[in-house]
């Protein structure tokens, strides 16, 4: 439904002409996030500079029941920052200031549009950093990280975004500007905890107070290659079992190794079926001792070779292949479906076997680069989009794989989030009562359902008005 002229005029009064995108070409830029499969341009894009403007926009949209879609940098991989129902998109790019850096209390307050890495850069010289490090950290916004509860390679040791958010300022679906949490914790329900990861369905984050950590004294990066993915997986479990919590523990499988080697060439051994990237950080003595132990474990599991970076340049080289992974598969196939399911770490060998079987069954190639330390898979299911039937096979393989992960006690998504893409998969993991609880939770923040509608929760009877989950039986009696 196109927006009326008066509505657009009101919107322009709030954000000014320079803060409003109305043209068809202009809006096209906002029709999808990095999951380009899902398209839907908003009817207008508002680019506010202050929280008060956000409040005014939400109130305007609420009055007219116009859907609102928040957007940070649009690097999401889930069909999140796009507008399947049209409406107004609120882009946070112009709200990108650091409001306060408080090193004594090790935290910072920032506007949502600030790029993740900019915060670390601002405090790096004083020896601090912002721990959540999605691979997109050079471009993704902190508001987007908070909204998706983003993870990253180093969250194995440091935790995901939610472990680093102390407070958020949120404009809820009712147009209320609320400050949840803050530098010091306060009694009451953990509203910050549920707002993080709510993908814009509770409201728009207009500021966040996040923790800053002190940079570790020493870092050690080790690269170990194996001839069998089972051996690499066992090395992962053995490292963790000895009490080492690496900062990162990443794995590449044979298909991925080949793709990378054929490209710029990280120089992985040709006959390696798995490459493990282990990064340790902390006090120097600890890193030294644990590094030796981790290397010994890899040798004991039959590693082909174990390389230890001696300086930053070598460290960068070991990471190079890992960082180029997504680009490298472009050499194998034009496109891919990216998965983000998680299995318990001990199930890695089993799921890798299953994954190869699924690939064979559906005649698709699957490349893997993943956060092995926490069992977070990132299979890339390769297909050629010029062959219509290939997509269908890729989709079938994708779903089977998800179900396999869940059957092993896993979860649908470890860090990317749900969006439009995975909403349909949530019922794999949750019973009706669980979904209904989430639906009602959302309603407390956004009773009119105008915030990012269609995202996160599936269209499912349990996520609708009037649904009542089955209640336990109560003995019959005369007292009622």
């Amino acid at each position, binding site marked *: 439904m196109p927006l009326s002229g008066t509505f657009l005029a009101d919107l322009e009064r709030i954000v000014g002409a320079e803060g409003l995108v109305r043209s068809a070409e202009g809006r096209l830029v906002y029709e999808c996030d990095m999951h380009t499969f899902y398209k839907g341009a908003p009817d207008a894009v508002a680019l506010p500079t202050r929280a008060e403007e956000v409040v005014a926009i939400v109130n305007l949209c609420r009055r007219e029941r116009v859907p609102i879609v928040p957007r940070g940098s649009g690097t999401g991989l889930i069909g999140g920052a796009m507008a399947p129902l049209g409406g107004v998109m609120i882009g946070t790019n112009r709200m990108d200031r650091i409001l306060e850096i408080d090193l004594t*209390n*090790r935290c910072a307050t920032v506007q949502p549009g600030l790029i993740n890495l900019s915060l670390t850069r601002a405090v790096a010289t004083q020896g601090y950093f912002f721990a959540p490090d999605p691979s997109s950290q050079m471009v993704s916004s902190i508001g987007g990280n908070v909204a998706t*509860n983003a993870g990253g390679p180093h*969250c194995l040791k440091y*935790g995901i975004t939610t*472990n680093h958010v102390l407070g958020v300022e949120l404009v*809820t679906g009712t147009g209320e500007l*609320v*400050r*949840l949490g*803050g530098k*010091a*914790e*306060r*009694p*009451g*329900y*953990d*509203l910050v*905890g*549920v707002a*993080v*990861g*709510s993908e814009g369905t509770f409201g728009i984050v207009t500021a966040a107070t996040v923790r800053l950590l002190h940079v570790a004294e020493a870092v050690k990066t080790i690269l170990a290659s194996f001839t069998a993915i089972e051996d690499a997986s066992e090395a992962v479990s053995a490292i963790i079992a*000895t*009490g*080492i919590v690496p900062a990162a523990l990443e794995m590449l499988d044979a298909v991925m190794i080949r793709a990378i080697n054929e490209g710029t060439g990280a120089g992985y051994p040709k006959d390696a079926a798995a490459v493990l990237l282990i990064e340790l950080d902390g*006090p120097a*003595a*600890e890193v030294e001792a*644990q590094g030796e132990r981790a290397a010994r474990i890899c040798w004991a599991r039959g590693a082909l070779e174990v390389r230890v970076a001696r300086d930053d340049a070598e460290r960068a080289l070991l990471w190079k292949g890992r960082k180029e992974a997504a680009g490298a598969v472009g050499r194998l196939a034009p496109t891919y479906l990216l998965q983000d399911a*998680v299995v*318990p*770490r*001990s199930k890695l060998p089993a799921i890798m076997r299953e994954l190869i079987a699924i690939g064979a069954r559906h005649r698709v190639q699957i490349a893997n680069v993943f956060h092995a330390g*926490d*069992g977070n898979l990132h299979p890339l299911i390769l297909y050629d989009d010029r062959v219509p039937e290939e997509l269908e096979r890729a989709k079938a393989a994708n779903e089977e794989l998800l179900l396999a992960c869940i059957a092993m006690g896993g*979860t*649908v998504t*470890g860090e*990317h989030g749900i969006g439009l893409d995975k909403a349909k998969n*949530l019922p794999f993991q949750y*019973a009706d*009562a*669980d979904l209904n*609880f*989430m639906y*009602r939770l959302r309603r*407390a*923040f956004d009773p009119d359902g105008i915030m990012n509608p269609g995202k996160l929760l599936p269209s499912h009877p349990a996520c609708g008005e009037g649904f009542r*989950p089955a*209640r*336990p*039986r*109560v*003995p019959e*009696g*005369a*007292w*009622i």
Partner: protein
Amino acid sequence: MPAAARSIGEALVTIAGREGVQDDDRARTAAAVDGQLPRWVVRPASIDQLGRIVALAHDDGLAVVPRGGGSALELGHPPARVDVLVDLSGLDQVLEYNPDDLTITVQAGITAGTLATLLAPRRQFLALDPPGAAARTLGGITATNASGPLRARYGTMRDLLLGVRFVQADGVVTWGGSKVVKSVSGYDVPKLMVGALGTLGVLGELTLRLHPLPDAERSWLVLLASAEAAQAFIERVIASPLQPNRIEFFNDRALRSVPVEAAAAGVALSIGSVAEAVREQGERLGVMAKADGARIVPLPEGFWSRAARASTEGNGAVLHVVSLPSRLAETERAIGDAIRTAAPRGEVWISGCAGLGTFRVRVGNASAAETAVATTRLRARLMDLVGSVVIARGPAELRKAVDPWGPVETGPFALMRALKDEFDAKRVLNPGRFVGGL
């Protein structure tokens, strides 16, 4: 007893069995919460039974008060009503332990002590050490978001709870979260249950993240001339490459109750890592202390449990004060002033996670009325610090005289009330005890 009530009692027996339901005066008196006697004390043997008990209470407009170890029943407002006291100690099973994944799923009535014993042979642990943990149930620790010195390194239950099965106010058994260490599948429902005092759901089952026990661990106490000196020292430790797993501040009296040595203020630290690193970090700590002109003494094994015990001794009120690390000294002074002004003979033991600005304050020699005045005074003093003063323990008289939670801002509170209205409109679960009387 009126006829209707008798049949509710019978219904409860149908659900939980004769041995699971008590309504005699002795049992009811023993289970009193703030002097209010429940009409029934019910001990479910399964989550299914728990769900049916809550469903029954819901349909009959009865109030349910869950009880774990019974150690934090003085937290919050005195309950508005107590009809069915649900004793969760029967739900004490380990459902699934995956040592290779460092995760465990347990029923909420298991105690932290039992869990620790079970995990020790695998050299793993649940990194939470609130005072009295051994006897407390994990459900209780979750509902009250209790923590201890280890939070300096490992965080609180908020960072360790992966999944939760709970019973909603209408009896529907619900699951939130996941059983793996990383998941963003849907809303983070476990966060909502942490610290909610069971007012949005009765906790039945918890999936927890575990940690490996460090190879070696040693502790030291740094003795300082003042809270200011302690604050400065802590700031330097935090800005250094050292990675302590505990950094606790102690005021003079708290130090004397431990007891190790006397000083105006002390900072106790522990370092857990591989043996080489513990030794090396210990040496560096020594150098840092000396540079500050402070004395440092190694702490004996058992220090931390002694400190935990000391922080709950006696029967005076316990306050949880939250401020900021940068205001440590100022907060310490404010606490002392507030209590001494209100209660001339009052005594204060202060300890706390100094690096995070959270303090545990035990008050002695002060009446309930005096403690109430001190609490209000302290809140006024700390107001600009955006922190809070919560009465974690104290007689009902005190918690009636002054709001045990303190004020909650209107915006967030409106959302909290909306959640309570959504999930427990009939006010079945722990009515009245939570913030703002929710």
